[in-house]
């Protein structure tokens, strides 16, 4: 099967407009005859469901949480990019397009990314109209800030809770449609399989998580917007419930899974504290605007710190290694996420880590320089030209509190350390997955009628996502792409009529799900689901994590195969099928994570180059920078499911064409 990306012809800036103009429409009177299922209610899912409801389709939306408002988009802190050029610093659709392609290390589709940049401004307009309270300046205009990897201020924000505000905006639009009866909402429901009829996506099997009942839901199109798969690592910044199940089930039904090895490791998270840790907490990238990252220059100092004999404040300035400033003088502490993460790993692997955990993994994010600088500025601004050292420190801390107070408090609650007095300890953690279900320009997977949006698709970020771009993509897909492309697909379905749920296809799908559930409940093994999930996480982190190599990836593939066998043999799932059973939910999700983990290792193994979030240790230059191989790997790797044994999956390549941007090495020095 050849992959057809369906990228429209013509100049890059006109592709989307021309394409939209030629897409088929469904007349308003026909829309109520058509059902659409939306799985997931994050930015992409909620905005899509709301938009479809407004258009007049019958929408059924599903989320596993107790309310659509809890989807993990809510946790995004920093902001959302849009090429509005409100700050008059030369921003444009083209520049946002260019920065995103470059940030993605030239592994994203030009046409998709340009469309994203084109609609970015509409997103802000739409959100403001909905009552999203973005930060504003004293003139009442929208405020912006800058983020890593760019030279303009195009990031719109709402304190450190931008994702929350945007999601609540989409949730409010969705709530309005639910209230009007145009969207039927299924909270605490999990999609456990896709139903195909005549090759087309025609419904899902969902489990009511409260009663355990398996439900059949039919539709003319199915939208998967279920987020990313970062929890394959067990420890990540994802929510505990974030899972790949919806995406993996459509993969198993024939949708290709693209670039699974592209994972973003965020550089500024709170380090692991112990074996009972369940998740990692992100400290916003914006902190890198004010903090300097360092480790001790001397190994013995690092050892003394770990042993609790030395405090970081006791390390003299000349004994500190500000390694990002040293290696990347041009961007310094504001290099893109993948670069900053790898540099931290390099130092810790070399024995300079400062955290007294099992792996000694942790570096300092130090605000003392900023306290002095801002303190002095603040004193001057107040007319005090001879401030004492105490005055400076006090004013500096005040400045920090105004800017990052929430984050500092959050850090202190978690670690019990005061970041105003002692540097923060940080370490990279899994944060976002660029890979996902392969989709064409219309966001349709290789299964007709099955569309995939947001983080769940592989789409727009190439091998590395820039900060503040995930929110942009989720809302672009849901508000401004899917309503057009899905309608185009549905235009042929106005005579189809309701899809019956008593067909043999629904019977078969429900049986698959039921058998799977029964298998776990009757397994009578001896170990908990978490035991296996943690084991999988360790394999993934150590061998398919920030640094990968051929041997490790091969080991990971076999180790995961063994883990899978052990899992099915020895997992113990208590309780029954017809009740709220969180352990059963976890088991079903971990089963999919295990298979995906294997595919990620395979994808990493085949990609013999380093690009963005995928760093193959064999492919680096003398200074430890990534070495891309554009000649052989300038493609999207899309995997086709071939049965239970994941190693049998077949790789399909979608060649990436760069017609409008000159491909070059990424340089942040």
């Amino acid at each position, binding site marked *: 099967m050849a992959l057809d990306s369906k990228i429209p012809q013509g100049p890059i800036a006109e592709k989307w407009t021309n394409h939209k103009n030629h897409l088929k429409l469904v007349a308003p009177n026909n829309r109520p005859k058509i059902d659409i299922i939306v799985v997931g209610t994050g930015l992409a899912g909620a905005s899509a469901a709301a*938009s479809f409801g*407004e258009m007049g389709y019958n929408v059924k939306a599903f989320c596993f*949480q*107790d*309310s659509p*408002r*809890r*989807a993990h988009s*809510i*946790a995004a802190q920093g902001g959302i990019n849009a090429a*509005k050029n*409100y700050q008059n610093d030369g921003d444009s659709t083209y520049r946002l397009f260019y920065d995103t392609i470059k940030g993605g290390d030239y592994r994203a589709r030009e046409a998709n990314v340009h469309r994203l940049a084109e*609609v970015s401004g*509409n997103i802000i307009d*739409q959100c403001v*109209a*909905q*009552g999203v*309270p*973005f930060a*504003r*300046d004293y*003139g*009442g*205009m*929208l405020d912006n800030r800058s983020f890593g990897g760019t030279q303009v201020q195009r990031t719109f924000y*709402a*304190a450190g*809770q931008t994702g*929350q*505000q945007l999601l*609540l905006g989409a949730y409010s639009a969705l*709530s*309005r449609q*639910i209230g009007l009866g145009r969207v039927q909402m299924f*909270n605490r429901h999990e999609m456990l399989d896709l139903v195909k009829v005549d090759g087309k996506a025609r419904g899902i099997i969902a489990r009511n998580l*409260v009663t355990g009942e398996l439900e059949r839901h039919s539709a003319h199109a199915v939208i998967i917007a279920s987020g990313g798969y970062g929890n394959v690592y067990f420890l990540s910044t994802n*929510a*505990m419930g974030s899972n790949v199940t919806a995406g993996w089930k459509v993969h198993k039904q024939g949708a290709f899974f693209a670039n699974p090895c592209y994972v973003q490791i965020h550089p500024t998270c709170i380090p692991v*504290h*112990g074996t*009972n840790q*369940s*998740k990692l*907490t*992100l400290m916003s990238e914006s902190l890198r605007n004010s903090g300097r990252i360092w480790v001790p220059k001397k190994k013995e100092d690092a050892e003394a710190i770990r042993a609790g004999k030395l405090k970081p404040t006791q390390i003299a300035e000349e004994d500190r290694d500000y390694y990002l400033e040293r290696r990347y003088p041009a961007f310094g502490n504001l290099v893109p996420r993948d670069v900053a993460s790898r540099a931290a790993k390099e130092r810790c692997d070399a024995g300079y880590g400062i955290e007294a955990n099992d792996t000694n993994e942790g570096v300092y994010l130090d605000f003392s320089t900023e306290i002095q600088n801002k303190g002095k500025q603040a004193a001057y601004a107040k007319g005090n030209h001879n401030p004492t050292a105490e005055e400076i420190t006090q004013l500096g801390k005040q400045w920090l509190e105004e800017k990052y107070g929430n984050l500092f*408090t*959050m850090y202190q*609650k*978690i670690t*019990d350390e005061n970041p105003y007095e002692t540097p923060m300890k940080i370490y990279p953690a899994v944060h976002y997955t660029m890979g996902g279900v392969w989709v064409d320009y219309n966001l349709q997977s290789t299964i007709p009628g099955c569309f995939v949006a947001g983080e769940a698709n592989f789409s727009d970020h190439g091998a590395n996502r820039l900060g503040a771009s995930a929110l942009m993509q989720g809302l672009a897909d849901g*508000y401004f792409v899917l*309503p057009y492309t899905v309608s185009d697909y549905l235009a042929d379905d106005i005579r189809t009529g309701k899809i019956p749920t008593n067909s043999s296809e629904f019977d078969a799908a429900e049986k698959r799900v039921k058998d799977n559930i029964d298998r776990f409940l009757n397994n009578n093994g001896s170990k*908990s689901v*978490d035991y296996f999930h943690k084991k999988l996480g360790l394999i993934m982190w150590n061998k398919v994590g920030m640094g990968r190599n051929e041997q490790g990836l091969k080991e990971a593939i076999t180790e995961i195969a063994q883990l899978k066998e052990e899992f099915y043999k020895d997992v113990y799932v*208590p*309780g029954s099928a017809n*009740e*709220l059973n*969180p352990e059963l939910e976890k088991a079903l999700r971990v089963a999919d994570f295990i298979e995906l983990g294997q595919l990620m290792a395979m994808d990493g193994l085949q990609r013999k180059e380093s690009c963005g979030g995928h760093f193959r240790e064999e492919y680096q230059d003398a200074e430890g920078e990534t070495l891309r191989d554009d000649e052989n790997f300038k493609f999207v790797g899309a995997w086709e499911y071939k049965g239970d044994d994941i190693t049998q999956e077949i790789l399909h390549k979608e060649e990436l064409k760069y017609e409008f941007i000159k491909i070059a090495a990424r340089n942040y020095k």
Partner: protein
Amino acid sequence: MSTAKNININLKIWRQKGPNAKGSMETYKLDNVSTASSFLEMLDQLNEQLINERKEPIAFDHDCREGICGMCSLYINGRAHGPDTGITTCQLHMRMFKDGDTIYVEPWRSKAFPVIKDLVVDRSAFDRIQQAGGFVSVNTSGNTIDANATPVPKADADKSFEAAACIGCGACVATCKNGSAMLFVGAKVSQYALLPQGKVEAAQRVLNMVRQMDEEGFGNCTNTGACEIECPKGISLENIARMNREYLKASLT
């Protein structure tokens, strides 16, 4: 506050098989709890212990575990989200407890939040209140007016944001002696009432949302102020006053 690295604790936890089952407080003992663990990680540890003993683990709601999704709840030692302020249960750490402590863990108690199982309650009443009016009636289109066409005074935008920071966890209802949801509703009403975009439907919104709130069976506000103290996001009582004002205005005009 505990300075020890590991503590042993006793737990008294509400167990209830299902929505219609009779529940009771059960006692558990858990050793070697790291004081660096969050409260939910401690429950994970307890569940692991229960699973290993072939007992049914305790069901509790949680998701993001960084204090923003609003999914976690729990009434711990007589307080919503436990003995600390400005946090959710997932941000509560075990260093707040001492070795040998007995910790009570109960679900939110409200007629409008029926227990589903153990510590899990149904908060869809909040969703229905939102559906009754918590929105601006604007459809998706690529051509609403430019975002900067309507300036919004910074003070209003900031206040609106502070109200919008509500995570819908339900701590206000749980902690209120009257089981009142007015802080939640007040915050929603305020967010929109403060913005020009929301003013168009302000009257209808507040009437509809309050009607829905009353129908759900929440109690009345008697201004004890407990909700403001226990709210993880520090939503101010000012928002309830603003709702009162908006409702009065909407009723009289």
